[in-house]
């Protein structure tokens, strides 16, 4: 599923309940949510979505790396990288889908 498919599904789902919410709103809503999540992380603020998961920053200490082409050493400064941990509901639904015969309780 791509971002545009997500927008279309969101518009469809919400349109059923409320005709006011049209495609343009769904498009702006998805953009607003993703922008807020990205800017939150880039300010060092974690994200916690119950039943979905959490996004944190992981620290990477400075290290001496190598340019694979020339073999010369380069210092790589410390940095932070985004990290996602799936929440319980997402974990169970995704794992349960692997064994379709098994009854899965949420």
């Amino acid at each position, binding site marked *: *599923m*791509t*971002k545009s498919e*997500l927008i279309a*599904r*969101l518009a469809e*789902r*919400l349109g059923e*309940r*409320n005709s*006011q*919410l049209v495609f343009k*709103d*769904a498009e*702006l*809503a*998805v953009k*607003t*949510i*993703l922008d*807020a*999540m*990205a*800017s*939150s*992380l*880039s*300010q*060092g*603020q*974690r*994200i*916690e*979505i*119950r*039943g*979905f*998961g959490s*996004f944190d*920053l992981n*620290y990477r200490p400075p290290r001496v790396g190598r340019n694979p082409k020339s073999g010369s050493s380069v210092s790589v400064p410390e*940095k*932070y*990288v*985004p*990290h*996602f941990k*799936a929440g319980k*509901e*997402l*974990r169970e*639904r*995704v*794992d*349960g*889908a*692997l064994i379709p015969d098994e009854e899965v309780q949420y």
Partner: protein
Amino acid sequence: MTLTKAELADLLFDRVGLNKREAKDTVETFFEEIRTALESGDAVKLSGFGNFQLRDKPQRPGRNPKTGEEIPITARRVVTFHASQKLKGMVEQFHAND
């Protein structure tokens, strides 16, 4: 200090002009649609943010760290997230001490 569904709903109220009920509903549905796609085995690619992918992991031997007893860790499907270059670039600029 943590971004949650409540803050996201407030943003939709402020910036998209949805009423409180629609905003809450939209945030819930946004994450539910992603869960549904992943549950059905479909990876989710959100350009500019990142990709949620699925990995099937085979059974492997494990151990109860308390008792030392050997118990197999069953085969499972897990979700992994790969941040886009754009998000990685934004986050790299963050320095805890600034």
